[in-house]
């Protein structure tokens, strides 16, 4: 009986094997290597030595790490929580009132930025914010002097670019959520004389609060992991001014060859992801209970 029940679970084995080898093992290896002086090349690459918490001590004392944490927080808060989330909600709300042809066209433009391969989107954003690029051309038409965005305001540029790239996801989530809000609920509020924004704040938003929570968790996790966009646009520069945690981990490991320190940064990022993931799982469980 026991064997029979176990054999029923056999089809799960390939998935478990893959998850163990390609996800769990790297995570475990990351935590292990972060306590060593593992390097990309040379002697420390062949025989890494145990160095205890040295990499983590360096993290707190080194300027680059606290800066990267701060930049990551600003990047996620501004481009995901504010940018993508609010803009996505706004677009979805406007779409409930607009002509279908307009919302179709705008939906296509928003989604295009999201479906494009990340490297192509990154190049397009790079060209757009370039000193000779489209944004400065538009500003010139308005009579303002252009700026060298990527050099003078790299963080602003990558925040705007990531908002552009990712808003489609929030828009799709909120369009699906708003489609499920019963029309008579908001219409009843209209009869009672509820004004537009009151209706939004007291009726519509509470009704879609689950979608809001799920969306916020998912876009936070996605934005936490953004690498290509930043790497192509600014490469973390100038002088670490746009080095978020994934970029820092990459630079330390592959540019400076310090795998030990790179994995220490990566481990922090993994832990951060796990914390958000745990909150996300908890939210979903609460909802089902």
């Amino acid at each position, binding site marked *: 009986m026991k064997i029979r029940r176990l054999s029923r679970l056999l089809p799960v084995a390939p998935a478990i094997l893959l998850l163990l080898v390609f996800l769990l093992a790297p995570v475990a290896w990351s935590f292990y290597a972060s306590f060593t002086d593992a390097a990309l090349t040379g002697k420390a690459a062949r025989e890494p030595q145990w160095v205890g918490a040295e990499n983590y001590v360096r993290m707190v004392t080194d300027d680059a790490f606290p800066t990267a944490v701060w930049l990551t927080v600003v990047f996620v808060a501004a481009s995901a929580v504010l940018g993508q989330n609010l*803009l996505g909600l706004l677009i979805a709300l406007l779409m409930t009132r607009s002509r279908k042809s307009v919302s179709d066209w705008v939906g296509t433009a928003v989604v*295009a930025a999201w*479906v494009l391969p990340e490297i*192509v989107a990154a190049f397009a954003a790079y060209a757009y914010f370039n000193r000779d690029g489209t944004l400065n051309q538009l500003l010139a038409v308005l009579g303002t002097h252009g700026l060298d965005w990527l050099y003078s305001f790299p963080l602003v540029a990558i925040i705007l670019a990531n908002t552009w790239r990712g808003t489609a996801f929030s828009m799709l989530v909120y369009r699906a959520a708003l489609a499920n809000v019963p029309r008579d609920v908001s219409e009843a509020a209209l009869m009672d004389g509820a004004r537009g924004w009151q209706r939004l704040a007291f009726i519509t938003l509470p009704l879609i609060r689950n979608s809001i929570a799920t969306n916020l968790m998912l876009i936070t996790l996605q934005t936490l992991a953004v690498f290509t966009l930043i790497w192509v646009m600014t490469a973390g520069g100038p002088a670490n001014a746009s080095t978020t945690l*994934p970029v820092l981990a990459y630079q330390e490991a592959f540019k400076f060859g310090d795998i030990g320190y790179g994995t220490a940064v990566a481990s922090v990022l993994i832990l951060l992801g796990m914390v958000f993931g745990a909150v996300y799982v908890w939210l979903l469980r609460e909802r089902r209970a």
Partner: protein
Amino acid sequence: MKRSRARVGADVALLVIGLCFAAPLLWLVLAAVDPQAGYQTKVPPAPSLINFSAVMTPELLGRPLLNSFVLSAGTALVNVLAAVLAAYPLSRYRSRFNKPFMYTVLLGTSLPVTAIMVPVYGLFVQLQLLDSMAATIFFMATTTLPMAIWMAKNFMDTVPLELEEAAWMDGASNLVTLRTIVLPLMGQGLGVVFIFVFIQAWGNFFVPFILLLSTGKQPAAVSIFSFFGQHGAIAYGQLAAFSILYSVPVLVLYAVVSRGMGNSFAMSGAMKG
């Protein structure tokens, strides 16, 4: 009256937003048909398709796209196969193992993939898997596996158990009913999972950039850097033309999925929980 005014307001606001989103893409399209393209967005004085014909060679376009296809199709195939197999017992049998497993899997979806690239590189060096197409495929399939298992189980839950029970009575085994009854009924859902994984793998830059070293194996996402000339000059027009040719397959695939079954369908599979 009031209603139609609100509508015009919404239309105008949406159009402004839409133009902002389309603006960065305009450069891509205009530069592609401009032999003298730079970073400026301008209507080409002498538009031509010369950039396209310049990049349409086996080395520049053919091989990278083929590599992209092998990587993406392989990833999607491994992914869907492992996800369906795993979803079957999770959907069909009650077990104490189900719930903890599903929540662990869900937690796996929140792992920032870019964070594990440094350790994955280290691991691949140790196991001598660097520059291996197959290992890269298995790794990429695994990164999307948690989401795929979750979606596949939700789709499978919608296939009624009674249909299978009748076949079991006639002596069919689980694997037979999975293949002949369950899979055809959830075919649409599986198609969505396959295409979404394919699109993600096709667009992925960071993973092949780290794990595939020889130019002969690199997909289009990585080979695109060949337009940043070794001689310092950037071939903007060709870069744009290549970008468009490389993007078209996923744009078409996405249009097919979203038209065929609607985003909300795929979204509900992923979000239902």
